[in-house]
C-alpha cells in the first residue's frame, strides 16, 4: 500500500554539517546510516524543520545554520494524496521564511500542521522519567493539530507571564499595570489549560489500547492531567492576585499551566519513580504511538515518522522499537542507525526499504 502522505524529495543546504544533501526517499522505509557525528540526526532535523518550523533538538531554529553560512535552506516535495506541494524553510539567526509553493501561508501554524510529522529521538527516552516539560510538549503537539489556536494561547500566556514576573520584581506587588497582565495571563492561560485538558483526553484514548497491546502482561495504566492553573479565567485571575507575594519571593510564577503535569501510573504507582525500566520503556513507546494516532486522527493522514537512533548495537532491545513502530504505522518512516545490517524490519519488504549512507555530511554510495 502506498501511503497518501510522503516526502518525495528533500534538499538540504547549509544545515549543521550538511552542506548539500539531496535525497529522493521511498514511500515506506528510509534507513539513514553512518557513523556517529556524520549528520544522520541533522538530516532528520532538516525534515522536521521543513515540516514543523521547529527543530527537535535546538531551542531556536536559527541555531542549525552551518558554521560559516548565513542561512540554512530545506526544500521538500510532499505528496499529499493527489496533490504535490513544495515546502521551503529558509532560516538564519535573523531570518525565518516558510513558503508553500512559493507563497507565504496566512499563519505560521498553517504551515506547521500541513505535513504532520512525529519524531522519536533519544531525548524522548525520558518522556516518562524526565521533567514534566517533556510531557507538556507532548500535550501541546497533540493540541496543536486539533486546535491550531492553542499554540497562540501558549505563546501569549508565556509572554504575559514573563512580563508580569518582570513587573513584580522591578516594581513590587502593587504596580498599577500588574492587573492587566494578570488579566491576559488568566484569559490565555485558561484557554491553554482547556486545550491541554482536551489533548490529554484524546491522548489517553489512544494511549490505553497502545499500552495494553505492547505490555507483556496485563497492567493497569492511569493517566491524568493535573493542571497547575485552572480553566476558569475568573478563578485564574483571582489566584494570580493572591500569589503575588509568593511569586515575588520565589522569583517564579507558581500558578498556571507552566506547572501542568501529565501524571502516569502503572498499577496505581507513579510510573515516573516506581515502574520498572521495562515498563517505563513500553510506556514511552506507547506515548509516541498515541501521539501518532491522535495526529493521524486530527489530520486525516498518516503522519511521517522520524526515528532517531532508536536502534543501536549497544542496545539490541531497542531495535524492537523500530519493529513496533513499523507495525503501528503504514506511513513513511525515516530511521537513523550506525548499523543498518542489524536493523531487521519485518514490517517492510526489501522493495519497501531504501538505505542512505552519510559520511562527513554528504551522501556516499
Amino acid at each position, binding site marked *: 500500500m502506498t501511503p497518501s502522505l510522503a516526502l518525495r524529495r528533500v534538499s538540504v543546504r547549509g544545515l549543521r554539517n550538511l552542506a548539500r544533501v539531496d535525497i529522493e526517499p521511498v514511500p515506506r522505509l528510509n534507513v539513514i546510516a553512518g557513523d556517529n557525528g556524520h549528520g544522520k540526526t541533522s538530516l532528520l532535523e532538516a525534515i522536521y524543520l521543513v515540516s514543523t518550523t521547529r527543530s527537535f533538538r535546538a531551542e531556536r531554529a536559527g541555531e542549525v545554520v552551518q558554521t560559516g553560512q548565513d542561512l540554512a535552506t530545506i526544500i521538500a516535495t510532499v505528496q499529499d494524496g493527489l496533490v504535490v506541494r513544495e515546502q521551503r524553510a529558509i532560516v538564519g539567526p535573523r531570518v525565518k521564511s516558510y513558503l508553500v509553493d512559493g507563497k507565504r501561508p496566512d*499563519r505560521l501554524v498553517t504551515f506547521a500542521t500541513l505535513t504532520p510529522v512525529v519524531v522519536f529521538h533519544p531525548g524522548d527516552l525520558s518522556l516518562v522519567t524526565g521533567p514534566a516539560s517533556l510531557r507538556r510538549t507532548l500535550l501541546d503537539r497533540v493540541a496543536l493539530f486539533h486546535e491550531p489556536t492553542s499554540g497562540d494561547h501558549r505563546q*501569549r500566556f508565556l509572554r504575559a507571564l514573563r*512580563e508580569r514576573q518582570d*513587573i513584580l520584581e522591578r516594581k513590587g506587588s502593587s504596580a*498599577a*499595570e500588574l492587573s*492587566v497582565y494578570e488579566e491576559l495571563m488568566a484569559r490565555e492561560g485558561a484557554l491553554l489549560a482547556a486545550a491541554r485538558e482536551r489533548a490529554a483526553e484524546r491522548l489517553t484514548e489512544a494511549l490505553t489500547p497502545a499500552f495494553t497491546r505492547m505490555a507483556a502482561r496485563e497492567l493497569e495504566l492511569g493517566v491524568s492531567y493535573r493542571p497547575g492553573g485552572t480553566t476558569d479565567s475568573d478563578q485564574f485571575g483571582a489566584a494570580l492576585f493572591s500569589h503575588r507575594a509568593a511569586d515575588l519571593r520565589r522569583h517564579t510564577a507558581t500558578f498556571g499551566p507552566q506547572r501542568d503535569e501529565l501524571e502516569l501510573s502503572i498499577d496505581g504507582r507513579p510510573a515516573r519513580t516506581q515502574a520498572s525500566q521495562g515498563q517505563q520503556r513500553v510506556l514511552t513507546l506507547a506515548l509516541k504511538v498515541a501521539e501518532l494516532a491522535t495526529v493521524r486522527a486530527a489530520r486525516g493522514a498518516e503522519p511521517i515518522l522520524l526515528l532517531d537512533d532508536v536502534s543501536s548495537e549497544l542496545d539490541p532491545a531497542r531495535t524492537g522499537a523500530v519493529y513496533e513502530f513499523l507495525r503501528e504505522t503504514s506511513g513513511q518512516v525515516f530511521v537513523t542507525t550506525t548499523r543498518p545490517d542489524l536493523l531487521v524490519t519485518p514490517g517492510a519488504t526489501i522493495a519497501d526499504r531504501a538505505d542512505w549512507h552519510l559520511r562527513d555530511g554528504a551522501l556516499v554510495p
Partner: protein
Amino acid sequence: MRLLARLPGVGEKTAMRFALHLITDAALARELGASLVELPARIGPCERCGNLAELSADGQVRCSICRDTRRDPTLLCVVAKIQDLLAIERSGAMRGRYFVLGKLLSPLDGIGPEELPLRSLVAIIRSEAVTEAIIATPPSVDGEATALYIARELSGLGVRTTRIASGIPHGGDLEFADQITLGRALEGRRRIGE
C-alpha cells in the same frame, strides 16, 4: 553613508547604493539636502493627536484630520503609532479623529504606564464631545495589555470604551493588515469588559 544606514529599513548595502547615486546626481543631492534641512521646521507632531502635521504660520500645530470639521467629533480612535493611523485612514472605515500613543506598555523594555501620554488623552476626552474611545492597538500581548490599561483609566469618564475585533492575526501588525480586514475589525468592535 553612516547616516543613511541609521534610517529604518536601510542596511549597509542600501546605504552604499544611495550614497553612490547621490554622488553621481549632485542636483538631487542638493535638493534632498535642502528639504531635509527644512523638514523639522515644517513638519512636526500634531499637538492634539500626535499625527504628522505641517506647522502653520500662526504657531498652531494641528494635523489635517484634527482640523477637518466634517469628522465625527464623538469618535476617537486610539492607535499605537502613526503608521497604524495611516493604515486605518486608508481603509476609509473611521469617520472620527485619532490619538497616537507613540508607544505600548512593554515591561521587558522598561516601558510602564507612566510613559503613556494618558493625561493628554484624558484631557481630550474631558474637553471635547467624545462619546466613544475605540482602542485600536495591535493584537499582541503588549497591545492588549495597553488596551486594557487605557480602558481602566477611562472608566468613570462617561465614554464607551471599545476594542477593535480580532481578525488581524495574533501578533500581526495593523500597519500591514489589508483594508478590508481593518474595516471589518473596526466595524466589529466590542465594548471592553463585556
